[in-house]
């Protein structure tokens, strides 16, 4: 038996059917093409489930329950609605997500505080109950321009400081996607300098100049924050041992593996650059220790010595 017949799959099909039917009943008819696009189902899946719905029925109104037929030209028609004319109420997770997503969108750069979104949220609150939910998404000033540029396909001139290489560069980029991850904002852009698609931390963009030069829009890149470093499989990996007070770092690191014995956490992290690792070790202090590779075991000590000498004129 394939998993398409398992309980999970049935729940998904029913969930979808219960949004398709009320929508269809309100309209009277619609084409399979339109419905397929709207509800993210293939036409074959739609036909299968709609035909099945048409067969459903309870005695004594066997023919009246869901009265629908599909024309040769792919138009779906419904008769008098009896069942499922209205959608199922919002579940608690759906209600939560709509409210939270709406408030988050309100807090994004460029959002208008009094617009259709604000009115929609007010109406939702009436149905779902008012609450004190606040969403804070501070973003660097360049974010708004970069979003606009990604929407239009506009090229942008930026000055960028890269922490991993510790150099400032001038670059011409075409933003494709702007995203937040763990409280930081990034832009994914086609970068002229490297000829590649790269991620840039927006708070490290020192200046951002719209050029007015438009290029072709492309499909929005996949959003995959968990695979931050997947496009660089050649990255080195360091094994760290963290004690309990250093655990906070676990959530913020590109982990390759993690092992928790209760007292310590042993993690393997992808290391973008030695500088990045050194900075991390400085922040963690005695909460972290490098177990491998050998040449990084004393990296924290070496970095601390250099920093003391260079910035604080102290030699140890």
């Amino acid at each position: 038996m394939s998993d398409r017949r398992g309980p999970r799959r049935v729940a998904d099909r029913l969930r979808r059917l219960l949004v398709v039917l009320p929508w269809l009943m309100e309209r009277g008819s619609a084409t399979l093409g339109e419905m397929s696009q709207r509800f993210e189902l293939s036409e074959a899946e739609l036909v299968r489930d709609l035909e099945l719905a048409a067969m459903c029925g309870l005695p004594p109104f066997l023919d009246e329950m869901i009265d629908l037929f599909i024309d040769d030209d792919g138009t779906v028609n419904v008769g008098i609605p009896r069942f499922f004319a209205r959608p199922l109420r919002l579940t608690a997770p759906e209600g939560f997500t709509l409210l939270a997503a709406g408030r988050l969108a309100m807090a994004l750069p460029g959002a208008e505080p009094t617009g259709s979104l604000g009115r929609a949220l007010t109406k939702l609150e009436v149905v779902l109950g008012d609450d004190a939910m606040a969403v804070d998404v501070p973003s660097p000033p360049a974010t708004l321009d970069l979003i606009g540029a990604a929407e239009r396909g506009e090229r942008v001139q930026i000055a960028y400081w890269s922490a991993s290489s510790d150099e400032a560069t001038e670059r011409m980029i075409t933003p494709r996607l702007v995203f937040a991850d763990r409280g930081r904002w990034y832009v994914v852009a086609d970068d002229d300098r490297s000829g590649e698609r790269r991620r840039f931390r927006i708070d490290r963009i020192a200046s951002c100049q719209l050029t007015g030069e438009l290029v072709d829009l492309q499909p929005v890149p996949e959003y995959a924050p968990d695979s931050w470093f997947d496009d660089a499989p050649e990255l080195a990996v360091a094994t760290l041992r963290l004690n309990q007070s250093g655990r906070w770092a676990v959530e913020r690191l590109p982990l390759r593996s993690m092992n928790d014995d209760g007292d310590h956490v042993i993690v393997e992290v992808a290391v973008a650059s030695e500088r990045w690792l050194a900075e991390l070790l400085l922040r963690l202090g005695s909460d972290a220790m490098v177990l491998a590779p050998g040449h990084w075991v004393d990296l924290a000590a070496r970095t601390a010595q250099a920093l003391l000498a260079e910035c604080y004129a102290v030699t140890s």
Partner: protein
Amino acid sequence: MPDPLERVTNLLALLLETNVALTLQQIAGELAGAYPESSSALRGAFERDKSILRDIGVPIETEVLGGDQAGQTAYRIDRARYELRGLHLDDDERHALQMAVAAVRSDVGQHGVWKLGGALAGSSVVVAELPSLAWLPALRIASSQHLSVRFEYHGTVRTLDPYGLLLRNGLWYVIGLDHSRGAVRTFRVDRIEGAVQTVEESSFEAPHGFDPRTVFPDDPKALGDGDTVAVVRVDVQIADALRRELGDGSVVAEHADGSVEFDVACANLDAFRSWLFGLGFHAQVTRPPEVRAAVIAWLRQLADGAAVSP
């Protein structure tokens, strides 16, 4: 084998249609042929269907019968509780919600949008961070209905009047009156252990106009006792970036070599140090002396290789 969707759809229609709650035997009788005949197989199949309906949010009411059916459980669905009512969105409002959901890439949100009559929005060029955690909907409802909640946190059971929720820097917090502490406390929702339980028949009043944002400062470096401020000097390479981050008002001095000194909150020394080291060799703390001394001591400890066996 008949398609299982057919049976569960019929069951849903039956329970919506019936005026009186039906027992399992009555249900099996009405949906003749749909369920297996043996009573254990019937029970198993019915439980699976019921859990599918619960999964998608269908509110099934159960009652235990009396009289000659004493002890039997009966089922029905109250249409008023099943149907989405009272929400009439205009097209532009629906579209705005659609776009908001597209920006958080949420399947659950998309189901909600469909119920409201919206379509699948195209992909948005912005992806905002909306972590979904199992207990958030329950916390929101408790907060909205002024019900206390109980959960385990760091190994201790807490009872909380949830005044509100806050999403900040990609993390969800619940803020409210902690009964055992008798004070307002903030909890990270992802650190809640086990289940969040609503305390029945509880009730609370949140402070008038409560705003979760005011409870803790948005700058973690200022999150601590007092209002200590340190002066940090950064070199020309990152001076502009820091000026944007901290604002012109934080500039204390500008030097001929292009380096700039800034006032930086450091009530929370850990957060301050973390931030400072993030600037690498481009920054040094210049005063007050005790903060400078603390940073130097931290570095010395590391430099001396004291970071052994954490």
